[in-house]
């Protein structure tokens, strides 16, 4: 065992972790915005509903790795050439948005129908009723699963390593190639991911429990 090798590489691995967190935050932010739009469209009818449903099914029912390959290697065939970072973030944002959309839809549908009906009968338009009455109530129910989704995304950013985006798993592969201390480095790296993801999981669970105990 050469644990000192893993610890000497720690500064480099921490830089990789920064890349992981940065990518995770970017994808989560963009994915949430897009997810809210898609989630609201899932509550509509006609073409917007069909398009939103197709989007959700496509990105939830296929592996993220395939989506990354498709965007990074496949889109250039249509003349769209993207850097590995942009391609990976685009694929992951779509993946995040599809999952966030289901969270948004579920949360809005869990708000009693009477809220919308009361708001509409007060003369608010559908958009106003959604914006001022239903959505604000739904946000509270979205937060715990969104924190859970964020945990998943942090773990999934490791897939960006396969197209050589610099983040923790890429950094780890480089260190392993240089030092051959595969056991030590991968264990340390797993520990680093754990240090980021475990507090998030605990937070998600706590928020969930508080929501359950508060609701009547």
């Amino acid at each position: 065992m050469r644990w000192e090798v893993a610890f000497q590489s720690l500064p480099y691995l921490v830089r990789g972790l920064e890349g992981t967190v940065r990518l995770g935050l970017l994808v989560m932010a963009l994915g949430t915005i897009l997810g809210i739009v898609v989630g609201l469209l899932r509550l509509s009818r006609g073409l917007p509903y069909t398009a939103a449903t197709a989007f959700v099914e496509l990105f939830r029912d296929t592996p993220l790795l395939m989506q990354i390959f498709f965007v990074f290697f496949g889109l250039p065939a249509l003349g769209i050439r993207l850097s590995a970072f942009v391609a990976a973030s685009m694929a992951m944002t779509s993946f995040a948005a599809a999952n966030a959309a289901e969270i948004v839809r579920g949360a809005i549908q869990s708000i009693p129908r009477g809220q919308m009906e009361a708001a509409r009968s007060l003369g608010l338009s559908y958009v106003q009723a959604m914006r001022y009455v239903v959505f604000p109530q739904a946000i509270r129910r979205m937060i715990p699963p969104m924190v859970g989704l964020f945990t998943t995304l942090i773990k999934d950013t490791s897939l960006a390593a396969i197209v050589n985006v610099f983040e923790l798993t890429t950094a780890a592969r480089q260190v392993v190639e240089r030092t051959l201390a595969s056991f030590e480095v991968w264990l340390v790296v797993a520990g680093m991911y754990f240090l980021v993801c475990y507090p998030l999981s605990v937070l998600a669970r706590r928020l969930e429990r508080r929501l359950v105990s508060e609701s009547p």
Partner: protein
Amino acid sequence: MSIDPAFALRVLPPLVRGAALTVEVSIWAIGLATGVGICGAAARGSRIRPVRWLASAYVELFRNTPLLVQIFFIFFGLPRVGVRLSAFQSGLLALVLYTGAYNTEVFRAGLEAVPRGLREAAMALGLSRWQQFRFVELPLAARIALPALGNNFVALVKNSSLVSTIGMVELTFVARDLEAWTFRSFEVYGMATLVYLGLVLALSGALRRVEARALRFLRPPEAR
């Protein structure tokens, strides 16, 4: 370069052959991860504190680290301590441990949802602790757990694409190989994505039927 639909059809047969290994590893992993989930949930509800503690540690460790890192650790890291596994064994082990951790939580939630009165009734009938678990708690818990369990299985099929990184020649590996030979990435990855979509939709369709069958007893007798 433009899109060539005829070429897309030509790559379908090799992709389907690759999908056979995806299906094989998924079936093995579904079976084994279900076993791990039941044992893990039983351990989490154990009266012996260290057993409970170990099971929680297992769940938290495997749920809060990326599957890709687990695969690399098992395939590249373990040989350094003398544990040498083939690509198939490593990939399968990682998938089973990762999904097993999620299944443990699902079965635990299922067991917790079993009404206390049933357990007490079983005890009053003189069933041993094992008989209570096997014939009263587990059948009900498994039915409660079924929808969430199905989601884990769907995730498992998608996650099996990661074992291509250690050289298992499944669907994703075949797609990457075809792409490297032909440079027709749009068609190859587009078709591979569709094959995955087909696998996932077939699995969720099958799961819906299993669910309907398993929950048949909840419907009124005339509708069975």
